[in-house]
């Protein structure tokens, strides 16, 4: 699926919830089901800074696509990462770089974007795009 299609799917999924509690319950469920990152990645090297909860992120290239794996010690953060991975993992570096991530507004997670929200959704997206840049450069060489 394209990034746009997945974003649409997620937006529809979230439109079913009419109160915040259901929405967060859903995020929590998704957080619990996030495939855990391998232990070797749970090190400072993969830690994203600027988070009140810790987030580890790794990226690998497979057949021209970037595979992201991530983990966090907080469940809601994991739920949010799960969404990001659904959208950005298994995509080409170019598509990742071009992704606008509009869904964040649409599903009402905007409050997690503000710089004071130290779960660092912003830092996560930035880090994922950074990986895309790196892989793109590598591919061009």
């Amino acid at each position, binding site marked *: 699926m394209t990034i746009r299609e997945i974003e649409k799917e997620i937006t529809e999924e979230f439109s079913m919830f009419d109160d*915040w509690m259901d929405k*967060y319950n859903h995020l929590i469920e998704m957080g619990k089901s996030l495939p855990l990152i391998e232990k070797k990645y749970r090190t400072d090297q993969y830690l994203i800074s600027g988070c*009140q909860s*810790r987030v580890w992120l790794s990226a690998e290239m497979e057949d021209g696509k970037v595979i992201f794996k991530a983990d966090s*010690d907080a*469940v*809601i953060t994991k739920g949010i990462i799960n969404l990001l991975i659904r959208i950005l993992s298994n995509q080409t570096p170019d598509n990742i770089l071009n992704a606008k991530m509009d869904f964040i507004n649409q599903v009402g997670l905007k409050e997690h974007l503000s710089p004071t929200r*130290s*779960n660092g959704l912003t830092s996560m997206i930035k880090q994922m795009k950074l990986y895309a840049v790196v892989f793109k450069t590598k591919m061009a060489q």
Partner: protein
Amino acid sequence: MNFDIKKIRKDFPALHQEIYGKPLVYLDNAATTLKPQVVIDSITNYYSTINSNVHRGVHYLSQQATEEFENTRKNIRKYINARNTHEIIFTKGTTESINLVANSFGKKFLSHGDEVIISELEHHANIVPWQMICEEKGAKLKVIPINDNGELILKKYKDLITDKTKIVSVSHISNTLGTVNPIKEIIDIAHQHDIPVMIDGAQGIVHEKIDVQELDCDFYCFSSHKFYGPMGVGVLYGKEKYLEEMPPYQTGGEMIKTVTFKKTTFNELPFKFETGTPNVADVIGFGSAINYIKKIGIENIIRYEKELLKHATEMLSGIQGLRIYGEAKKKAGVISFLLKDIHPYDAGIIIDKLSIAVRTGQHCAQPVMDRFDIPGTIRASFAFYNTKEEVDKLVQAILKVQEMFG
């Protein structure tokens, strides 16, 4: 005076708002307290009428500004029972007060090989300035450890003191664990060795009656904004004998007696330490806050808060899977806790959604977190306008969190 909580709550306009459609429960008072209407009014009033610089003009309004500004200084002197009005220095907050002393005292009195003592439960504001000056001077920073209840181990403190110790700086009340430190004892012990003591009273002034002469502390500092006054104002009390000897911290206008390009002589206390145009409006606003507190009576506040903390401790302790960090015999204002298997950040998000303001994280006290080997805590901190009903709402919110993450 009768402690009329209904009437008191009316004095704080920010209490009467809804967050996410429900009445706000504000339990983040250790970060900053709400302001009573009189404080807000006095700031508005200053800007609507007086609005003049202090100590400069001969015109009527400038004189009035100066008078109100200096009256606040007198008011604070009296409130903490300092000997002299010029021992009260206005800063922009606790952090600046500590930086002032660390730098200025450090410049004058610290040399290579000397030692400074702080404690394990300090706010970063009472760690980093000392760390920096020690590094600069080649001095050593020593740390009084805490026990599992979050109390300073006095025996260890005594062992840390040597003939190289030049100053001790500890907090009155821990913003993270709520521990009320035995500062009188700490001061007396230091004084037996002629070592001055600085007290970080950011939380202390809020929950205790302060008499700096009785305590005999050499420095005591606090922030207006944690004590029902406006942000951007703080106080440094210092004994005259030290303040006289200490060099200026910053330089510029206001703190100068004469300036030529060859030599500048500095103004006397307190102006030597007050550079540039001060925060006149907020100093005056802080004066109103202190008058307000005096009217309610700090003894009444302490008594009420004690009962509230007792209720909160009992209620929270009753929740399965909840662990309180900081179980000192003497505590005030603050309960830090964690829920089993739930990250404080997760809990914080849900508690926020339930219209309750608590703080989650490390509370600018990373060494405390390291001591207990935890990523952070959830901290509820109380003021005298909080109620038992609000504590009960927090309890319900915690149960909801456990249900959602269970």
